[in-house]
């Protein structure tokens, strides 16, 4: 036990603590680190230049998360409704791409989306004339790449609560007179939502901190927080600011997870009062 914990302490806890500390130091004149305490690295985040990138990357990550959750939930629902013996097979094939190389999966979309790619070819085949639309290096391409890469994760996150759900709950709702739609809205969705929200938080954080997909599918035109961190460490050499940015990433993740946990708590509480009121009123 001890060697493993020592390993984690030396190569995860200490380095992460170091980054936290770095975030409060000043950038040296030649790119080094000046050991004076400052909060200006966090202040930089409110600089209009960076704030714009923050909002932009939050929007892209948010859109990708939303799409991934909608598709992923539908897929997970379909898998959970499939015959029991087929479910592990379906699930395995849904998750399989997740375990193949991230770069390769992203690269596959370059092949599909580029100007001479298959999608353009398909458009031509359908009779499209003229200049092929630029599909690659767009926000849409970045979002598609993120959805594609994280969809298996969302399917898995959505499947777990759906599979755990006692199918008799749905039947009970139907038996008590609810339509299929009402059953979904009032029983199935509320019971599976908290688990799915936790999955969504991870997808959002992984997306917003991503630098590979914006670099490859966005052609560097769309900066995410991940790209900023990358730049501070590998090109701009402003480590303290890069450290502050990555701490911000962790903070966003913690914050969202906490909000999610509280919302889940509140939602069940609110559902109780709302139904109580209906019955009382």
């Amino acid at each position, binding site marked *: 036990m001890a060697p493993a914990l020592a390993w984690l302490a030396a190569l995860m806890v200490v380095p992460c603590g170091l980054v936290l500390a770095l975030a409060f130091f000043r950038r040296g004149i030649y790119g080094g680190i000046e050991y004076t305490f400052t909060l200006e690295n966090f202040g930089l985040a409110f600089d209009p230049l960076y704030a714009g990138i923050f909002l932009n990357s939050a929007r892209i990550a948010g859109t990708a998360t939303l799409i991934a959750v909608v598709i992923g939930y539908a897929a997970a629902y379909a898998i959970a409704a499939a015959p029991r013996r087929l479910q592990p097979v379906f699930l395995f094939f849904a998750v399989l791409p997740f375990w193949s190389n991230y770069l390769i999966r992203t690269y596959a979309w370059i092949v599909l989306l580029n100007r001479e790619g298959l999608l353009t070819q398909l458009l031509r085949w359908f009779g499209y004339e003229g200049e092929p639309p630029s599909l690659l290096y767009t926000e849409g391409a970045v979002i598609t790449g993120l959805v594609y890469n994280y969809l298996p994760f969302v399917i898995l996150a959505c499947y777990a609560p759906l599979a755990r759900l006692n199918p008799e*709950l749905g039947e009970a709702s139907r038996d008590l007179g609810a339509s299929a739609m009402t059953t979904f809205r009032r029983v199935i969705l509320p019971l599976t939502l908290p688990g799915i929200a936790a999955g969504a938080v991870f997808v959002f954080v992984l997306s917003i901190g991503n630098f590979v997909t914006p670099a490859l599918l966005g052609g560097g035109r769309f900066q995410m927080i991940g790209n900023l961190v990358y730049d501070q460490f590998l090109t701009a050499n402003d480590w303290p600011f890069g450290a502050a940015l990555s701490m911000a990433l962790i903070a966003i993740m913690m914050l969202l997870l906490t909000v999610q946990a509280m919302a889940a708590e509140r939602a069940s509480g609110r559902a109780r009062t709302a*139904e109580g009121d*209906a019955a009382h*009123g």
Partner: protein
Amino acid sequence: MSDPKTLLSIDNVSKNFGSVVAVDGVSLDIRENEFFALLGPSGCGKTTLLRVLAGFEAPSGGRLLLDGKDIARIPPNRRPVNLMFQSYALFPHMSVRANISYGLEMEKLPAAEIRGRVDEMLATTQLSELADRKPEQLSGGQKQRVALARALVKKPRLLLLDEPLGALDKKLRGAMQLELKRLQDDVGITFVIVTHDQEEALVMADRMAVLKDGRLLQCDTPHEIYEHPADRFVADFIGVMNFCPGKAGADGVMTTEGILLKGTMPQGLATGDAAVAAVRPERIHIFPAEGIENRTGGKVAALAYHGLDLQLHIQTSLNDKPFLVRVTADAADRRPIGVGDAVEIGWSAADTRIFKD
């Protein structure tokens, strides 16, 4: 008293899943206001039949006439039939009150009426104190009452209960049997209960049906089924029965030992057919009086004391298995019996049932 009115007529209903026949041409009538039990070993099709009644399975053949109308194709949410699930299936994210009002909200009733009916039902089921609890904060018995209240509050024409007492421990089960019976009397709703526990069915049901391999074997009052089982399976499944194999004679069964056990011959049994004579343990006399027709000698193989009565295992030449005989503690006191004693046992022809083997 007028004839009891038929509420639900199950008419030649079948259900197959692929090549597996779960319910095979079952016909029976369930009457208004009765407590009806579907009884059988696991896999006999009773739960499938219940799910057909609830609307979760469409019958492969036959009709379901509720108040004379065929409901076989009506979806579960539009049937005046409610099911109490074996797992209770309480909505874990809703309070007890919300669970119970759910079904009434689906009927789009005014809020005031919902509140009134839920309060009334909470009181009837003694749940008023627990109205704001979540299912996870309830005991097994309380959950069972919520599940019952949730189905009953809709005042269904027919309440289906799938092994309602299966999840409770033995002691609570006994109390709930009487409680269910009382409740059914109070609300005046027809109950159809599925159980594999023959004792439970005997205690609670006004009438019961015994199923095996998807087929209906017998449908009658508990008393009739206990005293006059339709066949060897029913005789064996309900209560305890001693069997003596042999061949059918003119007025009884001739055992392999050449002893004639007298009894009433059922129809369709020809002389020489394989047959069994059967008798309940409590109908057997130790040291039988004059005039008791069927008798044999044996040796006491084991004794089991049960408080109220004594069970004797008596090995005879009539069967490989020892006879089970129940003697009241009172009688046992008057004439003490020990293991290894030779005894004579006997029973009257009127208490002897004869079946095709």
